[in-house]
């Protein structure tokens, strides 16, 4: 089911939690809502689910306005950040809940309920724990019960609020893959909230970046990563060097040397040059000075565990992080204290905020 969100606003007292949000969610896609804490992700999700009401704007499902549809009539599966399981019910009864509260006419026979719940529990790999209570489960298991419970009503839309937020890194990774497979099998329009950019980029078909109650950018993971709309998105998608420079006559300059940048350069004045660590190109420093157009830096520390080496460089008093393969590192024969040349494969420049 497609969801159209038009100019949705929500305020809490004088505070604007959502300031005119518009978004089209395509049928069957897995969409990530990414943004820092307090950016309005949960608020937007709750409005879609009908758990909160927008002050203005509209949300429609397949072109039908949802204003008058209560949460219970929306067929939206909601997985809460803290699971919100019914703790006096067994895992089985939790999952069966949505089926058992259906109107008499629509309610499946108890035998069909059993079959359906067993199916769901098998799918989330919890059939052996059906008779446990939520307090007897691990965090990852509770998470999966919450998911199975939401799926039991055959929702048209699945909303997940930081589904992996409270789990440790290993379990997160496993569940992430598992959720992706699940989505590929079931094709339910799904939106999940996260403030972990890696999770959003890895899992989602499209990523929505939010900040201060606004949508900043919508795009595929590659689009938002390679072409961030602004400095916030660039920053938020992680691992970035910010170097203070200037824009002079339409050219970005760092220490007087011109920097090749992607996209618009902007008006003259102080500016910040953004470079991702893996876009920093290092070279062997020539014996006689520095070739034109390049900078020179000194290695201040070096971490070479794993396939990728991370270097901290000192570029005329600025800290600069660079990433390169271990092979490239041994070609360059760099070590702490040695000099090298620096260039940038891709960089962006944004006016400095005053």
């Amino acid at each position, binding site marked *: 089911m497609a969801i159209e969100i038009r100019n949705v606003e929500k305020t809490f007292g004088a505070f604007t939690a959502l300031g005119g949000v518009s978004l089209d969610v395509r049928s069957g896609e897995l969409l990530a809502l990414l943004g820092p804490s307090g950016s309005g992700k949960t608020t937007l999700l709750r409005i879609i689910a009908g*758990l909160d009401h927008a002050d203005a704007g509209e949300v429609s499902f397949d072109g039908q306005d949802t204003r008058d549809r209560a949460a219970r009539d929306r067929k939206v599966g909601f997985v809460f950040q803290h699971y*919100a399981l*019914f703790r006096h019910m067994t895992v089985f009864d939790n999952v069966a809940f949505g089926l058992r509260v259906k109107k008499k006419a629509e309610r499946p026979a108890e035998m069909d309920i059993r079959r359906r719940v067993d199916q769901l529990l098998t799918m989330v790999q919890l059939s052996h724990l059906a008779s446990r209570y939520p307090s007897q489960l691990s965090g990852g298991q509770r998470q999966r019960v919450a998911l199975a419970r939401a799926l039991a009503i055959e929702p048209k839309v699945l909303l997940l609020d930081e589904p992996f937020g409270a789990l440790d890194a290993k379990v997160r990774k496993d569940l992430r893959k598992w959720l992706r497979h699940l989505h590929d099998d079931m094709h339910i329009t799904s939106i999940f909230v996260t403030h972990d950019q890696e999770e959003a980029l890895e899992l989602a078909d499209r990523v929505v970046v939010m900040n201060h109650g606004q949508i900043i950018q919508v795009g595929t993971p590659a689009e938002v990563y390679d072409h961030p709309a602004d400095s916030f998105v660039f920053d938020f998608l992680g691992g970035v060097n910010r170097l203070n420079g200037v824009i002079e006559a339409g050219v970005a300059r760092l220490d007087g040397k011109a920097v090749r940048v992607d996209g618009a350069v902007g008006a003259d004045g102080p500016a910040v040059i953004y470079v991702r660590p893996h876009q920093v190109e290092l070279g062997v420093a020539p014996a006689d000075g520095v070739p034109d157009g390049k900078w020179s830096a000194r290695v201040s520390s070096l971490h070479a565990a794993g396939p990728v080496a991370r270097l901290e460089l000192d570029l005329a008093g600025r800290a600069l992080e660079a990433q390169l393969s271990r092979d490239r590192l041994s070609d360059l024969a760099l070590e702490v204290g040695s000099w090298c040349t620096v260039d940038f494969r891709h960089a962006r420049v944004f006016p400095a905020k005053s």
Partner: protein
Amino acid sequence: MTAAASTTATKPARRGWAFLAPTILPGFGTAFGFTLAYLCLIVLIPLGHMALRAADVGWDRFWAITLAPRVLHAFYVSFGCALAAALINAVFGLVVAWVLVRYRFPGRRIIDAMVDLPFALPTSVAGIALTAIYAPNGWIGALAKAAGFKIAFTPLGIVIALVFVGMPFIVRTVEPVLQDLDAEVEEAAASLGATRWQTFTKVLLPTILPALITGVALAFARGVGEYGSVIFIAGNIPAVSEIVPLLIVARLEQYDYAGATVIATAMMGVSFLMLLGINFLQRWTRSRHAR
């Protein structure tokens, strides 16, 4: 008072005879000895002594006294009214607690303070106040009279007095549990398609139930033991509105010590059995709850 906490506390005991289980807490011997001595002095010796005195009268007379119609009826009134009042309070006390926890309205603090009044008032004050209103010449009593029935001087009056004294027990035991309820659990139920009523009966009530039963048990126990407020409003008509404690006092006033002791012992026995029953009920609801 979460069910989870209390069940984990009782769990190790179930594993077996935990009397001498190794423990890391020091001073078990002293504390246990003190507890035993204290309970003996305050509870066991006085009550045991009373039971022995009752036994003095002999088996046949014991039953003759307790099974006399007037005594039986007093038991029926005492326990019946206490149970009715506790159940009425279970419903309306829950509503009061719900309103106090869920809604913010002007005067909330005043209502909150009013709930505790029955705790603080001497029960005779309650008795006088209630009688003044519910007696046939009081203004609610007059309405009832016009409608053709009496409140004061009937078991109905006793129930009202017991509702009054028992209400804070329910409100105050249920309130913290209601406060702890997670709003998200209700929202989860709603998003799964449950109506408000289904959410209440299938999700909220089971969560509140252990606390509610505790409150009912307390209110019931209090109702059975209540004396001060009841004697005013009950009118104490034998075989109509006479409660057991009053019957005991009446026997004492007639210097019938043996009779008083026998009735008192019977009362103790019944109360004990009922509390035991409630205890089992509580354990049962808790074990169904988060284990």
